[in-house]
């Protein structure tokens, strides 16, 4: 037989504080009920106020993100009268104005700065762009531009071949406003494969090393740099070699495993020594080895071309004090 379980008795000796104080509405007096309703109304009012404040904050945040035009009408600002350009490069204010294409009567607060910045950043020549409102009526555009270190020839289908520039970080872009003489002095890049992307081309790998080599030779031996025509990256990925074709030497092989400064010094020395020979035409100079520099001469006998010239391996500067590295 199942007997109902007896309810456990309350523990003896409870404190009066354990007594439940709330009473039901029916047990309240009229005044008590009025107070309770008032308390409820206060609670509901506070809840509504809280909800209102939360909604307003959300609405403002949402407006800020999506509807700047309506926000702009709430803030008094004047029409944009001036676009100020500050740059470390060659881009002109007119070009910036053209790219931004601001509507004529737009107010300063109505500008969508992130969108405008995007328009500028589409151009590879622009590395960093900062747009700021300068109240009451000026938009300040601060640019940091890329510097070209080489150029490439691009031809899409039957279109006219186009010359593009390559920056140190490998970005390929269409240069604007550059000095044509400066551009003509840049070597061409060879042995690369340009991969199209949404923003133009995928940056070329290995340009950091190429840039380092070019800047070294440009700084330390500008007379050599002036004669460089083509820089090939064809063997860079597989053999760590950068092959340069100069005006007077068809093949100069550099390696990225050794300091470029030393390789350039060796090249300069070898060229100088080669000029002392009766027939100075160098066909190939290989600077990839640490201890010796294999050199091939034009019309040289097989014996002569296969042996490294011992005289060429004298320390740099030993015979010619005029070259300083």
């Amino acid at each position: 037989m199942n007997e109902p379980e007896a309810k456990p008795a309350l523990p003896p000796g409870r404190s009066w504080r354990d007594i439940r104080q709330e009473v039901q509405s029916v047990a309240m007096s009229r005044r008590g009920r009025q107070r309770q309703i008032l308390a409820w109304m206060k609670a509901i009012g506070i809840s509504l106020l809280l909800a209102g404040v939360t909604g307003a904050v959300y609405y403002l945040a949402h407006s800020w993100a999506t509807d700047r035009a309506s926000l702009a009408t709430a803030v008094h600002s004047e029409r944009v009268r001036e676009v100020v350009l500050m740059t470390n490069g060659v881009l002109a204010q007119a070009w910036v104005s053209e790219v931004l294409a601001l509507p004529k009567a737009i107010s300063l607060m109505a500008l969508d700065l992130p969108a405008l910045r995007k328009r500028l950043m589409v151009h590879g020549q622009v590395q960093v762009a900062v747009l700021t409102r300068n109240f009451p009526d000026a938009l300040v555009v601060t640019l940091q531009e890329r510097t070209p270190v080489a150029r490439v020839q691009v031809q899409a289908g039957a279109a006219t071949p186009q010359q593009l520039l390559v920056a140190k970080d490998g970005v390929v872009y269409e240069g604007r406003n550059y000095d044509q003489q400066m551009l003509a002095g840049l070597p061409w890049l060879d042995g690369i494969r340009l991969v199209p992307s949404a923003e133009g081309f995928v940056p070329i790998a290995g340009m950091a090393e190429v840039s380092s080599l070019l800047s070294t030779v440009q700084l330390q031996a500008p007379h050599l740099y002036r004669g460089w025509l083509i820089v090939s990256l064809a063997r860079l990925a597989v053999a760590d070699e950068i092959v340069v074709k100069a005006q007077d030497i068809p093949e100069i092989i550099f390696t990225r495993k050794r300091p470029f400064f030393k390789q350039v010094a060796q090249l300069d020395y070898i060229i100088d020594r080669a000029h002392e020979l009766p027939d100075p035409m160098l066909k190939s100079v290989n600077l990839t080895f640490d201890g010796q520099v294999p050199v091939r001469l034009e019309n040289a006998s097989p014996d002569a071309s296969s042996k490294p010239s011992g005289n060429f391996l004298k320390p740099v500067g030993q015979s010619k004090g005029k070259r300083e590295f």
Partner: protein
Amino acid sequence: MSSNRTRIIAAVEIGTNKIVVLVGQVSPSRLLHIIGVGVASARGIMKGEVVDYKAACEATHEALEMASTRAGADIQEVWLAQSGGHLDAFYNEASVNVKSADNIVTALDMATVCAMAKEKELPEGRSRIHEIRRPYRLDGRTVPAPEHLVARRLEVGYWIIHGPASKVSDNIHVIGGYHLEVRELVLASLASGSLLTNTEERTKGALVIDMGKGVTDYVLYRDGHVLVTGTLAVAGEHLTNDLSLGLRITTAQAEMLKLRHARGTIQTRDKTDKVWLNGDGAFGDRQISKLAIETITAARTLEILEVVKQKLGPAFEAQHCGAGVILTGGTSRMPGLEEAAARIFSLPARRGEAPTWVNDELRDPMFSTALGIFEFALRGAHEHPVPAPRKSGWLVSLARIFATT
């Protein structure tokens, strides 16, 4: 936890005759400023117990409303006086051997002995109202603070006041019916005693008797501590009843006679000295012997005081009650009560006087208990700290409102 806010607290006494509400503004530094008073005739209360919930609510809420309106502030919490024949108390003590090897009393020893002394179980259905600690004893000698002193044995006793949970709940629910929370219950006799005695008197020893309409509360102090408290369900109402029965008059007439001619001791010697029953010379008015009135009221008064003495038992020793007997409550206005008390207790007796900080308007004995509630809680007349203020703020209030549904 201390609050940085001023609290609006109502001290409420739900008496058999009157319901008194005092609204006090208590600052964070425990400064009290009485800002509202509400008094209503009691209904639905008999000998401190709620017998008609609805009537008791109406009367109490009327007093609360009056006090709140006069204060011009919304009452945040209630400290409620508790009285009535349903309350009981007992003494329980415990002792422990001091644990440390060097016999130095630690805080842990004190906590242990206090917990043991308080842990005695109450009969089923009873709730604790107060746990009042008496002084510690170290190897038999009384010390107020035994920590870091050397002894082998530590003893302490607690005077535990309790009451039936159902009746205590009734009083609390009367306040709950006004959508207010009771934050502290204070025994009426402790409240009156705290107000009417000072530290010196409590140290000398004092007996405070609060004689109301339905209940007589008393508290005996010795060495600065509460020794015994108690409540008798006999008070001024019985004097009225005795007059009504003895003189064969109505209760209302008896009440009038009591207020005008009752005495705690017999003063009249002339049997022919008479007083008019109604005093209006109307039809049915008659003369009653003043001696008869005094004889009846004095007999009952002496009996009540005698019962108080009996209840105190061996705890009461006249030589340890240097400050004498202090009388308060509505019935204490009766002439001759001091003489009666002095005769019974063999001690000087006087009417209790409220401290000087109490306004003239509140010096009436009717307000003693309500004022004493503030005094007891704020001046720390027992070991429990002032009740922690209820967490306030709109968010907490909001949560509380939703929690009560």
